[in-house]
């Protein structure tokens, strides 16, 4: 049983399009992280959100933490081929344990 469900599992879009990836759970998290992983490498931390309703922007990437701290979304504007990768969300519980989502594999076609 996966504590965090991500959707969609796979996404293939054209360069310049917008997309949103969702990370959902029935559990409350003290914080939530988003990572991007490229083939042959470990996940790289993109952002941490802590407060319910928080919105953080990282260039063309917008991250939002749900008001109840159970879900999050990642929105990419004008996707570029360099955005291609596996996007993972990870929720941290109050016991400092991390649970990873199922991952979204994004391919941006030039």
């Amino acid at each position, binding site marked *: 049983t996966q504590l965090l469900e991500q959707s969609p599992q796979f996404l293939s879009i054209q360069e310049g399009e917008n997309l949103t990836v969702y990370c959902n759970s029935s559990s409350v998290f003290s914080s939530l992280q988003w990572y991007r992983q490229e083939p042959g*490498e470990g996940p790289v*931390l993109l952002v941490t959100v802590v407060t319910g309703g928080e919105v953080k922007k990282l260039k063309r990437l917008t991250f939002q933490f749900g008001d109840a701290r159970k879900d999050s979304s990642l929105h990419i504007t004008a996707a570029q081929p360099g955005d291609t990768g596996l996007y993972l969300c*990870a929720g941290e519980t109050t016991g400092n*344990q991390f649970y*990873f989502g199922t991952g979204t594999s994004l391919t941006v076609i030039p």
Partner: protein
Amino acid sequence: EAGVTQSPTHLIKTRGQQATLRCSPISGHTSVYWYQQALGLGLQFLLWYDEGEERNRGNFPPRFSGRQFPNYSSELNVNALELEDSALYLCASSLMFRPQHFGDGTRLSIL
């Protein structure tokens, strides 16, 4: 600042053998986490060490074990290897209550 380093990069073993994977955390980080990333299954939590002690373990059999040394580096040992143990094993380090930073993993292949 050096990141999390893992060795070896690749490891090939046969069924029944034992494997040892190593991880050096970012300097100053006291927590080390181990994950298994099998194809199509995402990251599965294995073990968490902090200050030399095992704090928690995931839903894996006892043949998966490890330890953390006084310098906070860590080893993951897998005994009696099975074909389904083939995966990328990722190590991450952090300060307590801070996000994790990952190494590039050890690719373990069981023949």
